[in-house]
């Protein structure tokens, strides 16, 4: 993980806006980050902070209307995704970048068999025969821990449990050895016991296949600690802090990150006590404050926070933070 590594995915100043009943909702407003080769990159934040929209923007899967990517650039292996014609974009989707969604219950088409939906993607990108694709699909199911894969291919999604569906989704996403796997809260909708299984599976699959990078979206910092190398913290459509995982946990810079960490249950504390949550609520996306988005809930808030939005600046090598506390003027 040296600085020389060329980023696999480079997102710069991404802006994705939605039109909600005539008003503009800036769901993602100037997001920049890099994902390197062979890296697990975490994106954390409360629900509604724009994580999913960021991920969907990378695949250009923003529903239009009401949404639109209004600015920024996304480079994937040197190619500018936002400038690609749709036909070229489709060749990347599912093939070089694939995605796993939060809701395994609805993400699969209920009227087609698992096999149909797996084979469809394989054949689309490889152009192989139906039989070959079927063999490959069955193999993938076995690989993700669905035994008797060949027989299960003819099952419908509703015959699978939630965890199994998510496994099938992973099989689908990894069947073509993509360079980047985007996992949008892959475990949120699952039982706690299944959650770690699925996470382990994802990491395991990464080594079994060609070592894809993973963009792991979650609202759970514990998951990040277990799996990621670097992490970005999002709030109000903006990235507030980017850091390697260990420094972030040891010394969070942004008050929001500090708040998130405080709300984590600690294994060393023995008894489960009531989680301290960050007081206040996420501001409505239509009525964002003009200054710092987190100012309303920030324990460190001072006058400048309401007036002026801080910049995301590199405060240590490889460490970025968007907070007035960490610029030259500081609290003055």
């Amino acid at each position, binding site marked *: 993980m040296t600085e020389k590594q060329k980023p696999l995915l480079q997102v710069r100043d991404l802006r994705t806006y939605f039109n909600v009943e005539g008003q503009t909702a800036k769901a993602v407003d100037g997001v920049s980050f890099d994902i390197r080769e062979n890296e697990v990159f975490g994106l954390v934040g409360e629900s509604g902070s724009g994580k999913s929209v960021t991920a969907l923007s990378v695949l250009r899967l923003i529903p239009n209307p009401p949404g639109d990517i209004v600015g920024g650039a996304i480079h994937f292996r040197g190619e500018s995704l936002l400038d690609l014609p749709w036909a070229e974009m489709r060749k990347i989707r599912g093939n070089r970048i694939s995605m796993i969604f939060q809701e395994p219950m609805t993400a699969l088409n209920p009227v087609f068999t698992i096999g149909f939906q797996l084979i469809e993607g394989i054949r689309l990108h490889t152009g192989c025969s139906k039989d070959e694709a079927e063999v490959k699909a069955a193999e993938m199911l076995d690989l993700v821990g669905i035994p008797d894969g060949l027989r299960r291919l003819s099952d419908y999604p*509703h015959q699978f449990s939630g965890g199994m569906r998510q496994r099938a989704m992973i099989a689908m996403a990894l069947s073509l050895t993509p360079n980047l796997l985007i996992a949008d809260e892959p475990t949120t909708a699952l039982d706690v016991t299944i959650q770690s299984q699925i996470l382990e599976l994802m990491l395991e699959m990464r080594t079994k296949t060609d070592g894809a990078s993973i963009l792991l979206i979650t609202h759970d910092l514990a998951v990040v600690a277990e799996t990621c190398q670097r992490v970005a913290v999002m709030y109000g459509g903006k990235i507030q802090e980017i850091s390697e995982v260990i420094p972030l946990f040891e010394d969070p810079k942004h008050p929001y990150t500090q708040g998130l960490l405080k709300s984590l249950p600690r294994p060393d504390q023995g008894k489960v006590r009531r989680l301290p949550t960050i007081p206040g609520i996420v501001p409505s996306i239509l009525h964002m404050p003009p200054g710092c988005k987190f100012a309303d809930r920030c324990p460190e808030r001072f006058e400048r926070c309401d007036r002026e939005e801080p910049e995301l600046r590199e405060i240590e090598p490889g460490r970025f933070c968007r907070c007035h506390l960490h610029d030259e003027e500081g609290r003055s």
Partner: protein
Amino acid sequence: MHGMTSYFIRRLMLVPVTFIIITFMIYAVFRMAPGGPIEQARVQMLKAAAGEAGGGGGESGGTGMTEEERKSLEEYYQLDKPIPIGYLVWLGFWPNSHKGGKLSGVFWGDFGYSNEHSAPVLDTIISKFPVSIYFGLIGYIASWLVCIPLGIFKALKHRTHFDTLTSIVVFLGYSVPGFVAALVLMLTFGTNNFGMDWFPLGGFRSENWNVMWDQGEFWWCIKDQVHHTFIPLIAYMMASFATMTILMKNSLLDNLGADYVRTAFAKGLPERRVIFIHALRNSLIPICVGIGGAIGLLFAGSFLIEKTCTIDGMGLLGYTSLLKRDYPVLLGILTFGIVLRLLGNILSDIVLALVDPRVRFQ
């Protein structure tokens, strides 16, 4: 699969129960309602009794019914017996004293006898099937052919000028009942009021159709049939046109917004495949399920349209029987209508189970 079969067997077994409840209610209403056939029959009997005393004949005056009709009604409704027994006789599970004490009723295919038609009720009803099915079937197929593509197109062009314009047509179609449309069409294209006397004013075929057919004038016959079909067909289509189009449109719109559509796009599938394979397959489910409901219309026809266009089908039979107070035929038609509806419900369930793999009935 096994569970499903037993589910349908159980549903089918519910049909007789439902059937018996409804027909019993209707039978009871026929027997008890003021002004019903029995009331009329009783009035006639009183009159007849007075008439005999006065030396008059059996024929009652004016608006009432003849002695024969009264007799047949009395027989039909088993007037001399209490309602439940009479109903059992009608159903065919109690000896019919008027038929030599034999079991004879609906269950045995005996729907009674219509004096109006001088024929058994069952024959009268069945003789009307072909005409009603002809229009019902053609109308239904035609509306599928129009509504499904139109609905898809409207969904894909949602909130464009095309959508708005066709919506106006669709809502107009929804607000004008089929028989009113038939009236307007007859006025415009069936009379010379606007110089466009192109189609006949009604009827299933021309009077001399059978003669021409025997003479081998097939071309003329086909043309004549098409001519007579046009106006009623449009009226029949109107009945389901708007609902089906909107159902198709909304159903497709809902599915296009579903998560699995996003998954399909994320796989890199082209738009066409996502829309026409993934979303469409799902959105056709509610349309297919409608088949069960249509079966009733298919057989029973629509008395409004059949009356307007003087088409001699089941609907018109019901209407004329009502005007003539031909109660045996009325009860027969009602019975048929109910059975068709009940079977239609089951057919809908079967179709749903066939087209939607999620559905498993226990």
